[in-house]
């Protein structure tokens, strides 16, 4: 039996629940989980003050309710599965190294910052700075996968070093800013200044976008890795047309302010 938490009292100010992860609650019964200390604004409270807890911790954790004011859920988790039936707040899965997080609703900003492994799947939208570096760090996510079926906002994959970020909808500005390596796929429209300051890595967009003047056009081609990648995404219910799998892509290289070794691929009918 898995552990189930449903919110009975919505918090007035954000809850910081970095201790609520499937791996940390293994072996705990409902009483023990209710007693876990979490931060409510500047006060320390317990999980039981806000959630009704049922079941026993066996590596699978379900949370229910409007969690848009609950931050740091799944931070640092290394294994297990976290299911959130509703919206969720910021810093979801920050620094996680393994396991799986699935969100039915929307997520706040800072999804999976500096994660090194594992998988985050969001059925709705996410806000800014998905899979990015914290301010002051040069390196963002170093591994793992983030799948967002809806839209994302600015600075997706900031400083990304490795891994995969997929946005089913549109992305905001500065997608892949300062990225070092890794792959970002945007199936909808991509905002401006994509790949600004990127060193290496691949940004893929299905729609034409305004390129920075520091990017240069190379050729049209159909990379084999992309076919495999898009087929895998199709099987995960991302909306991908066959012509996107077989069609050609424009390759742009940049950012020339950083040695021109990154690439942006743009689907051409």
């Amino acid at each position, binding site marked *: 039996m898995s552990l189930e938490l449903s919110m009975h009292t919505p918090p007035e100010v954000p809850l910081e629940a970095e201790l609520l992860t499937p791996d940390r609650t293994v072996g705990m019964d409902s009483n023990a989980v209710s007693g876990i200390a979490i931060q409510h604004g500047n006060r320390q409270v317990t999980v039981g003050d806000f959630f009704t807890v049922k079941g026993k911790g066996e590596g699978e954790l379900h949370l229910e309710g409007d969690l848009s004011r609950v931050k740091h859920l799944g931070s640092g988790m290394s294994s297990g599965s976290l299911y959130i039936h509703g919206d969720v707040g910021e810093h979801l899965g920050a620094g996680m190294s393994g396991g799986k997080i699935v969100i039915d609703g929307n997520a706040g900003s800072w999804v999976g910052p500096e994660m090194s492994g594992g998988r985050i799947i969001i059925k709705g939208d996410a806000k800014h700075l998905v899979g990015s570096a*914290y301010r*002051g760090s*040069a390196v963002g996510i170093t591994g793992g996968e983030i799948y967002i079926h809806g839209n994302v906002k600015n600075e997706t994959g900031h400083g990304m070093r490795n891994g995969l970020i997929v946005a089913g909808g549109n992305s905001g500005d500065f997608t892949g800013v300062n990225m070092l390596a890794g792959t970002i796929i945007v199936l909808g429209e991509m905002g401006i200044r994509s790949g600004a300051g990127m060193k290496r890595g691949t940004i893929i967009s299905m729609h034409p976008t305004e390129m920075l003047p520091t990017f240069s056009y190379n050729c049209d081609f159909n990379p084999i890795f992309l076919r495999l990648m898009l087929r895998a995404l199709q099987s995960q219910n991302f909306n991908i047309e066959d012509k996107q799998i077989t069609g050609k892509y424009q390759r742009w290289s940049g950012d020339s302010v950083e040695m021109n070794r990154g690439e942006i691929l743009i689907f051409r009918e």
Partner: protein
Amino acid sequence: MLIKLSGGIVYDPANGINGKRQDIYVRDGRIIDKPVAGSKIDKTYNIAGKVVMAGAIDIHTHIGGGKVNIARIMLPEDHRHDSVRKTSITRSGCGHAAPSTLTTGYRYTEMGYTACFEPAMLPINARQAHMEMADTPIVDKGAYVLLGNDDYFLRMLAGRKDQAAISDYVAWTIQASQALGIKVVNPGGISAFKFNQRKLDLDETNVYYNVTPREILKSLAKAVHDLGVPHPLHVHGCNLGVPGNLRTTLDTIKSIEGLPMHLTHIQFHSYGTEGDRNFSSGAAQIAEAVNKNKNISIDVGQILFGQTVTASGDTMRQYDGHWHAHPKKWVMMDIECDAGCGVVPFQYQDKSFVNALQWAIGLELFLLVDDPWRIFLTTDHPNGAPFTTYPHLIRLLMDRSFRNDMLSTVNKAAAKSSILASLDREYSLYEIAIMTRAAPARSLGLRDRGHLGSGAAADITVYTEHKNKERMFAKPDYVFKDGELVAKSGKVVKITKGSTHTLRPEYDKGIEKSLNTYFDRYMSIKLENFKLQDDEIIELGSGDIIIQPCN
């Protein structure tokens, strides 16, 4: 309120007490002689066998002023990796290399420090510097005001104004900015940088004002001496960090012609050009010169390995250092008519030849300078290392085998080219008490600090003697500030407001007339607003203002 500290082993060099078992009595914040028999003792601390010293004094630590705030703003990662939770009495904070003001105060107190002095306050930034210092709890504060690169002074010098007028200006600046001394940073060099000069040696000429660093130093040192400012001119010399600057430093010592002078972070000014890499230690020559010239005092500015941030008014040298910024970001600022500043984060690496040799040079200086009354323990926080590394540094000085163990882990070529392994000296507790308490208090003219004699302020630190000196000095058992127990077992237990130490040298008020015209024409604020009032400092949060007497 009468407190008795019973049975401690007292190290009080100012009164010549070297490890004597002695009781200490404190009445209403002051140390007193043994009270008459039958007096009611309100509180007795049994500290039998523990080491008792006066509260430590840091003579050179960047804890206020614009540059520290720039470092704080620039380094969110420094905050993120070192966050401090609030407790029932202390407030939250963060920062390793450039901690927040509150955290700075707590951490100093928890290490047994009760006074810290900001060495580079620009006159135009004095209000900001005092605000930050006022926000630093518990410890006493004070600042040295920066002159020698400001347009007004350089114009006076270029115009061959007489020394009395320059002294008046120096005294006026001390009063207007509520300072405790005068500091000069790269004399004339910060100004020269603005006129596109990228180096300025002792006898090179600032192209705009046609004056040399030698003239600036002499004029300022004379003014400081004539005004009776207790602390000698605090000098950050020319050519900081340049291989071969050893020569400049020796010339600087000669140039001052016997006037008192304090050479700060001298480790950065003690480099030779010998060896395959054209970088060698000049510690022996510098120490010899310091030993010979009794008018010179120094602080070391020891580097210790790890991430830190360098913050300095020396734009010329900081600009040159920005190529080595780690992480890669830096700030250089022009500060109107006064000077400038540069902030460059830096990581000292034990496997780097240069960094390892810098580390060894600092330690060589500590061990080769004979008189602990004229050498102070500093890391030039945060430039060489954060002040929280002091206990580690003390262990390096007091424990030869530990020092040699550390030496064996650093860059081999650097270790080989240093004489550190051959230096047997180990500092005693008495010498540590001199260099961290008695000597800085004497140098700054703080007559009631840094000692435990009758009448002194009851700033007292009690340690448990331990073989591992790092452990001993990191967590004192008790720290008293003005007779109140502020830290126990290395944790703050009471928050007090420290005092601000200032000076009021005499000068001819007539100088304000020409200054007024100058301010109206060139400065961003009016003269009357420029002057910092006493009640402002109190309103900012400082406990009170202590006016130290001039000689």
